[in-house]
């Protein structure tokens, strides 16, 4: 079980060896990619920020919960922070287990909980020049205005 926050490009090919296990018949991964639009706005690039000390503890906790709820063998989650472009890999979750059912369920549990609980924030930069912190009421354009002052 391993949760990481990384500032460099994520390389699933490298991480996946940590999940290999001859007892496992099922391996499920989720990748969160930066997409070119969100809620109707065209996105140019993204910036992720993390409160790393608490984020790592919360992430480890989520992996431990997944392992307690489902009979899995290995689970890894890596979240990237910093400046990302469209198509970049922002988060990678991988689970291996004897059978596929628990791998699917645990992988879904981990990404859902990570998105809700790990202190990571995402600022979208839009094609029209605006930007905003996602989930933050009235924050779009606020940041831009703030910087212009």
């Amino acid at each position, binding site marked *: 079980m391993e949760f990481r926050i990384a500032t460099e490009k994520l390389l699933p090919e490298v991480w996946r060896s940590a999940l290999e296990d001859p007892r496992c018949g099922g391996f499920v991964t989720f990748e969160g990619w930066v997409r070119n639009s969100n809620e109707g706005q065209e996105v140019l690039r993204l910036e992720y920020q993390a409160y790393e000390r608490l984020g790592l503890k919360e992430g480890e906790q989520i992996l431990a919960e997944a392992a307690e709820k489902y009979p899995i063998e290995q689970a890894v989650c890596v979240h990237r922070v910093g400046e990302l472009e469209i198509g970049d890999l922002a988060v990678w979750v991988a689970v291996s287990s004897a059978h596929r059912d628990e791998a699917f369920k645990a992988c879904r549990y981990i990404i859902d909980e990570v998105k809700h609980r790990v202190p990571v*924030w*995402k600022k979208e930069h839009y094609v029209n020049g605006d930007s905003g912190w996602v989930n933050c009421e009235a924050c779009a354009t606020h940041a831009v205005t703030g910087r212009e002052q």
Partner: protein
Amino acid sequence: MKTVTIEYFAVLRECAGQHQECLSTSALTAGELFKELEKRYGFPELNSIKVAINDEFSTLNTPLTEGDIIVFIPPVAGG
């Protein structure tokens, strides 16, 4: 008066114009401290605000202790 360290992230960092600061406050709880900072920096309206004290999730009505490291957590958006 207690002296605490505040670390800022995301929109709060942009409003405060700094990553962290050390300040003396008469606020008794984390929630009172947030109101004080909100007034000073003009934080935008947030759907919800959480707080971590010394790198543990806590609650806004938790009393402040000398030397606390406080992080206010706007709605997260990982993944």
